[in-house]
C-alpha cells in the first residue's frame, strides 16, 4: 500500500495523532534552530516568518488557481491592499482614525473582499487567459495607485505600522510573529479544507475540470467563481496585513509583478489544488533563496527555467504528480477487481488534453 492510501485508511483520530506532533514540531522550529536549516543572511526566526507568510499566500492563491482553476496573475494586488489597510489604520503617518492592529486584520480581509468583488464581477465572465491578463492589469493598477495617490504616500510610505498608541509593536520578536502566522495558517487550512469538502468545493472542482459541463449540470459557475476569487482575495489581504505588521513599514516598492509571479510559482511548483503541495511550494520559493544566498542572484532565473521544465515534464507540480500516479493506479486496481468507481484527484493541470 502506498502512503496516500494508507493515510486515507487511517481513522480521523489516528490522522490527528500523527498531525499534531508535526504541527508542534513546525511551531518549535525557530526555537530549535537546527543548524542544517539555519539561514546565513537573515536570522532564522525572520526567515521562518517569511516562509510562513508565503505559505499563507500560497494557501489563498491555491483556492483561486488550484481549486477553482482561475489563473490570477495580480494576486499581489490583494496582498498590497491588505498591507495598506493595516498601514492606514495603525501608522502615525496616516491621518485616519487609529485602530488596534488586531482589528485591522479582519478589516483588511473585508476591504480586500470588496476589491475582489469589484474586480471579479466584470472579469469573471471572461475565460481563462483573458482573465489572466486582466488580473495582471489589476495588480499593476494597484501598484500605480500606490505610486500616484498622495494619501498613500508613495515611496516615503508608512512607518511604525502595527504599533499601538504608545508606539509599541504588536509583537516583540520574529518568533512570536511566526507563531501567530502559523496559527492563522492552521485555522485557514481547517476552514479551506472544510470548504473543499462542501458543496462549494465540489462546484469549484467541477468548474476547474470543465466549465461548460459544470454549467449544464446546474452549477452556477459565475457565482462560485466569484466566491473563489473573493475568498482567495481575503486570504491575500490577511497575509498582506501580517506582512505590514511584521515589517512595520509599507511603501510602494514591494508589490511588483515579480512578487505576483513568485506567489504563482509557489502554487504551481508545489502542485496546484493540493494543500500540502502548495505549502511545500511556498517553502521552496521562500526558503531556498534565504538558505542559499550564493544563488540569490540567479533565483528568479532558476524559477523561470524550473517553471518551463516542470510544465513540460510534470505539469501537475511536485506533489500533484504523485497524487496523479496514485489515482491512476487505484483506477487500474479497481478496474481489475471489477469496481467501476471513478477516482478523482487530477487537476485540470494534470489532465492531458483538458479544456482545449
Amino acid at each position, binding site marked *: 500500500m502506498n502512503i496516500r492510501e494508507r493515510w486515507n485508511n487511517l481513522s480521523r483520530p489516528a490522522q490527528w495523532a500523527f498531525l499534531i506532533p508535526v504541527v508542534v514540531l513546525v511551531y518549535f522550529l525557530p526555537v530549535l534552530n537546527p543548524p542544517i536549516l539555519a539561514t546565513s543572511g537573515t536570522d532564522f526566526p525572520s526567515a521562518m516568518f517569511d516562509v510562513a507568510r508565503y505559505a499563507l499566500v500560497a494557501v489563498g492563491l491555491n483556492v483561486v488557481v488550484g481549486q477553482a482553476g482561475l489563473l490570477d496573475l495580480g494576486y499581489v494586488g490583494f496582498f498590497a491592499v491588505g498591507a495598506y489597510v493595516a498601514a492606514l489604520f495603525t501608522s502615525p503617518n496616516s491621518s485616519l482614525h487609529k485602530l488596534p492592529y488586531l482589528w485591522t486584520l479582519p478589516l483588511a480581509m473585508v476591504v480586500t473582499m470588496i476589491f475582489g468583488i469589484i474586480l471579479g464581477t*466584470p472579469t469573471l465572465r471572461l475565460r481563462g487567459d483573458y482573465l489572466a491578463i486582466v488580473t495582471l492589469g489589476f495588480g499593476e493598477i494597484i501598484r500605480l495607485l500606490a505610486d500616484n495617490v*498622495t494619501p498613500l504616500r508613495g515611496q516615503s510610505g508608512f512607518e511604525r505600522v502595527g504599533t499601538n498608541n504608545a508606539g509599541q509593536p504588536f509583537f516583540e520578536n520574529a518568533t512570536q510573529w511566526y507563531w501567530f502566522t502559523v496559527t492563522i495558517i492552521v485555522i485557514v487550512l481547517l476552514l479551506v479544507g472544510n470548504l473543499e469538502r462542501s458543496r462549494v468545493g465540489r462546484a469549484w472542482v467541477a468548474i476547474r475540470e470543465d466549465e461548460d459541463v459544470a454549467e449544464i449540470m446546474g452549477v452556477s459557475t459565475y457565482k462560485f467563481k466569484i466566491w473563489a476569487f473573493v475568498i482567495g482575495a481575503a486570504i491575500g489581504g490577511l497575509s498582506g496585513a501580517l506582512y505590514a505588521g511584521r515589517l512595520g513599514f509599507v511603501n510602494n516598492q514591494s508589490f511588483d509583478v515579480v512578487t505576483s509571479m513568485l506567489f*504563482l510559482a509557489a502554487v504551481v511548483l508545489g502542485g496546484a489544488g493540493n494543500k500540502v503541495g502548495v505549502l511545500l511550494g511556498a517553502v521552496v520559493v521562500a526558503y531556498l533563496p534565504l538558505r542559499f544566498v550564493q544563488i540569490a542572484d540567479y533565483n528568479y532565473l532558476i524559477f523561470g527555467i524550473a517553471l518551463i521544465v516542470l510544465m513540460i515534464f510534470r505539469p501537475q507540480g511536485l506533489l500533484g504528480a504523485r497524487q496523479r500516479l496514485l489515482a491512476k493506479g487505484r483506477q487500474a486496481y479497481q478496474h481489475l477487481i471489477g469496481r467501476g468507481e471513478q477516482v478523482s484527484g487530477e487537476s485540470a*493541470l494534470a489532465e492531458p488534453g483538458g479544456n482545449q
Partner: protein
Amino acid sequence: MHPAITAALTQTDSWIQFDVHGLASQFWNNTVDGLAQGGIYALIALGYTLVYGVLKLINFAHSEVFIVGTFATWLTFYALGFRPGADPHLSTIEVIGFLLLAGIAAMAASGLVAVGLERVAYRPLRNRNAPRLVFLITAIGASFAIQQALKLIFGLNQQPQIRLLQPQPLFRIFGAVVTNRDIILFVAAVLLWFLADYFVNKTRLGRGIRAVAQDPDTATLMGVNKERVIVVTFLVGGLLAGAAALFYMMKIPQGAIYNGGFLLGIKAFTAAVLGGIGNLRGALLGGFVLGLVENYGQSLFGGEWKDIVAFVVLIIVLMFRPTGILGESLGKARV
C-alpha cells in the same frame, strides 16, 4: 462626518486633476505623438494576434522577444562604433544605412528568440497535448527566464542612450510639430502591417496560417504542415517585434532595460484585444487607438496616470466588447 475622512477627501483634488484646458491645447501634439507610439504598439500587437489566432495562446513571452530586439539594436549601434553621449553627425544616407543594419539585427535576434521559444517551450507541450493553462504558465516562466538572463548579462540599469537619428521638425499640423521620426514610425508601422496582411491573406503560407487558425485538424488533413505553419507564425511575430524594437529605440534611445518589455508587452496586448485579437487589421487599429487614448489621458490626468489609462481601457473593453472593435477573425475565410 469624521474630520479625518473629510481631510482625506479634501486631499483628493491634489492627486488627480482634470486638465481639460491642457487636453485642448495639447490635442494635436498628442495626436501626432500617439500615432507614432501607436505604430510601435501595433507592430508588437501583430505578434500577439498572429500567435493567438493560430494557437489560441497568449504568448506572454512576446514582450521579451521584443526587448531582446532593443538590446540587439543597442549592441549593433555599439558595434558600429557609436558610443553613448556623443551625438554623431551623419549624412542621411548613413543614418538610413545604419538604422537598416540595426533593424536587421533586431529582427534577426527577435525572430530567433521567438522561434527558439516555440521550439524549446511550446512544442513539447503541444506534443503532450497539454491544456491551455499549462501553455500560459510556461509562457510566464519563459518570460521570467529571458528577463532574468538579460538582467544577468546587461545589469539592472538602462543601457545609456545612443541616438543616431536627431528628430527634425518637418512641418506643422494645426500647430503641432511633426518630426521626421514621427513620420518614419507611422509610415513604417503601416507599411509593415500591410506586408504582414498581404503575407497572411495572399500568399500560400499565409493561406496555411489561416487554415490552421480555422481548424488545425482539417488543415492537417488537407496537407498543410501544421508544425511549419506554427514556426512561421512565431517567426513573423518575432520579426515584427524586432522592427518595433528598432522604432522604439529611435523614439526612446535609453529604452534597452531588462524589464522594459513588460509594460510595452501588456499594452501591445491591450491594443490587440482592443482591435479584436486574431485580427491583423484590428491590431493596427487597436495600436493607434491605444496610443491616442493614452496620450490624451496623459494630458487630461497628468503623466503619472498614463499607464493606468491603458489598463483601465483594457478592462473596460473586455467588459463591454470582449471580441474587440473589429472582432476575432484570423481564422474566418475573409479575403
